[in-house]
């Protein structure tokens, strides 16, 4: 067999190869490559979109968690502040009450002392008045009895004069 026949292209085969290949390019371009590649592109897009959405959701959850922690911390702080305020208020109330009580007591004591001294003065005055009255009475009684006697009156006057001179 002639070896050159292997490297001699046959016209008919070239013709049919052309037709088949060009037909394949045209048909596959429209009915195969376009749908397959567009489906792949679509899928790639949806995958990247989903990944983005997942990332976003994860970020949101993270921020939510952070928010929750912040809220809890805030609540703790508020509670502490409230407790502190309450304690302070209690202390204040107690001290205020103590103050008021001692002041009231002082006032009562003072007024009691005043009253006592007033009463004492009153009693003293009365005593004095009574002593004076009694003395006058006694003096009247004494004088009454003494002045009935003329000598005694004379003695008294003289004595008084002596004392004066």
């Amino acid at each position: 067999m002639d070896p050159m026949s292997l490297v001699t292209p046959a016209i008919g085969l070239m013709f049919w190869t052309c037709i088949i290949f060009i037909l394949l390019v045209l048909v596959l371009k429209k009915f195969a490559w376009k749908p397959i590649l567009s489906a792949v592109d679509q899928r790639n897009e949806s995958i990247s979109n989903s990944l983005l959405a997942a990332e976003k959701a994860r970020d949101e959850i993270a921020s939510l968690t952070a928010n929750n922690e912040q809220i809890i911390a805030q609540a703790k702080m508020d509670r502490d502040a409230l407790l502190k305020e309450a304690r302070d208020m209690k202390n204040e109330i107690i001290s205020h009450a103590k103050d008021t009580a001692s002041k009231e007591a002082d006032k009562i004591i003072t007024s009691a002392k005043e009253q006592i001294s007033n009463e004492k003065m009153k009693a003293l005055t009365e005593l004095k008045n009574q002593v004076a009255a009694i003395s006058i009475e006694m003096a009247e009684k004494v004088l009454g009895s003494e002045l009935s006697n003329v000598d005694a009156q004379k003695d008294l006057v003289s004595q008084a004069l002596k004392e004066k001179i």
Partner: protein
Amino acid sequence: MNNFSLRLLVSFLIILFFPNISFSEETTSKDDSELYNPVPAIMHHISDSHEWHLLGEGDASVTIPLPVILITEGNLDVFMSSAFNHGHTDVVKGDRVYSMDSHGHIHEKNHLSILDLSITKNVASMFLALIVMLFLFIISANKSKKNTGAPSGILSFIEPLVLFVRDDIVKPNLGHNYKKFLPYLLTLFFFILVNNLLGLLPGAANVTGNIAVTLVLSFITLIVTNFSANKSYWGHIFKPPGVPLALMPIMIPIELVGVFTKPFALMIRLFANISAGHIIILSLISLIFMAQSGLGTAGAFGLSPVSVLFVLFMYFIEILVAFLQAYIFTLLTSLFIGLATTEAH
């Protein structure tokens, strides 16, 4: 490339020297023993023919007849190749008498010029490849249209290949305007791949190992490359930058030849690789028959396990080569287009 050149050498050795050896043996040692000559069978298997040979030898062979389409001086003659009766009968159509010689070529008795557009074995095999490809890819496309999730079924096999061609062959070489050439390059890749793989089936045709097929494919590469070429590509050919004026008469023809050598290398590479693969497998199988004719039946039995193991090994290599050659042809074509369309730098 080493593997390629080695196999090219082997194939040429077989093609060129075996006929001489067998001729000399036919003349000198015809009487003592007739050593089996594998060359006719191998050449028959890797050549195109007007009928699809399944089994048997000579007149007893079982073949599928294929349509013969001839245009002889303006007359269209169509008949089945079985009408030749393996070359024994002439076919008469009007005033035209066709005969088939022992190589399977059709001649006209009155030496009229024939345009042979027959559906040969290779054309039939290519139509089979066309059907296989349309079936595979249109099913895949329908699947991809329906299904928005992960690819399933046949699509999960097709899609990674399509994406491999797009992302690893076409995009790196063509850059941003790859979309224009993608359908052509995808079809080219799968056309070569499917024909390579179909050629490996027992009894199949040697489509991509036929120079006419690779010629057409590389010619399309030539056309696409040069018709999409921009100013800087032609500038590099007709006014190579940085070359002294005195060298222009040498450089311009070299550059012009370069335009044709690139697709020419594509044509030879695919043809030689696939043909060589077929020749090696057929030669290894022929070893059994050569052993039988030389050493007798015992020798054939002894040699056949070795031969079968080698053939099995070669088959795996051929599957690899089927993918590799489709990859290389597509890669180089996109590289050439990329070089022709790249912006001046």
